[in-house]
């Protein structure tokens, strides 16, 4: 019981405002924190996602409102802002998906070498950003 009851040392030497902006994370660290950020973003925007599903599925009439959301907007929110939010959601989904598959692959194959951690993290970041750019260009009507 001594191990459990002994007071654990606390390290409080990181100041969020002073140290975090200059902290140089490795690629795997970026994937990790962005996995959390993208998950939190989708959690917060869940009602908006379900609204999109609702509007797109319920009727021809609501489908028109769904389409219009990307053009004239929703209420006082302009269409370009709706597109930006959807673009953020596209990135969040892609990053969360690819980083999640990376997690599952590592768990299943015990691929825990330093090299694989770095290379797979770089692949995750590049792939998610490239696909976001591709779908974002489509969303904003660039092709």
């Amino acid at each position: 019981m001594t191990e459990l009851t002994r007071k654990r040392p606390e390290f409080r030497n990181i100041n969020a405002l002073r140290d975090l902006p200059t902290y140089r994370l490795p690629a795997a660290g970026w994937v990790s924190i962005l996995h959390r950020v993208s998950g939190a973003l989708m959690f917060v925007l869940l009602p908006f996602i379900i609204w999109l599903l609702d509007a797109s599925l319920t009727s021809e009439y609501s489908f028109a409102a769904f389409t219009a959301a990307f053009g004239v907007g929703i209420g006082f929110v302009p269409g370009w802002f709706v597109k930006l939010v959807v673009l953020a959601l596209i990135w969040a989904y892609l990053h969360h998906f690819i980083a999640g598959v990376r997690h599952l692959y590592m768990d299943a194959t015990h691929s825990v070498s330093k090299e694989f951690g770095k290379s797979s993290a770089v692949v995750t970041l590049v792939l998610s950003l490239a696909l976001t750019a591709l779908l974002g260009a489509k969303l904003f009507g660039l092709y």
Partner: protein
Amino acid sequence: MSVNYGSKRTVVGASYGFRDWLSQRITAGLMAVFTIVLLAQVLLISGPIGYEQWAGIFASQWMKFITFAVIVALTWHVWVGVRDIWMDYVKPVAVRLLLQVLTIVWLVGCAGWAVQVLWRL
């Protein structure tokens, strides 16, 4: 040296986490498969996708069946993930409990709405 076992056990709001770890991965796998199934159906549609084509995907009973399972899986998955965030960053037990309760309310409400959308079709 304070006692932190028995009735004085430290409240951490969690068990040892294996069940959460495993369920998060299983629900993730289910959602990944669903993503591919949905994407395949969207890509198989030839020509522009209007209301008929899009709603048609969710009209079949088997699609409703797996979509419902995915809504449940998503809710469970998000619960594990968001609770992890609260446990990492929010230390006061009362605030953490409040946030966890609000998270459950948020998720149950959203899940109900999503299920309603599905079965109204």
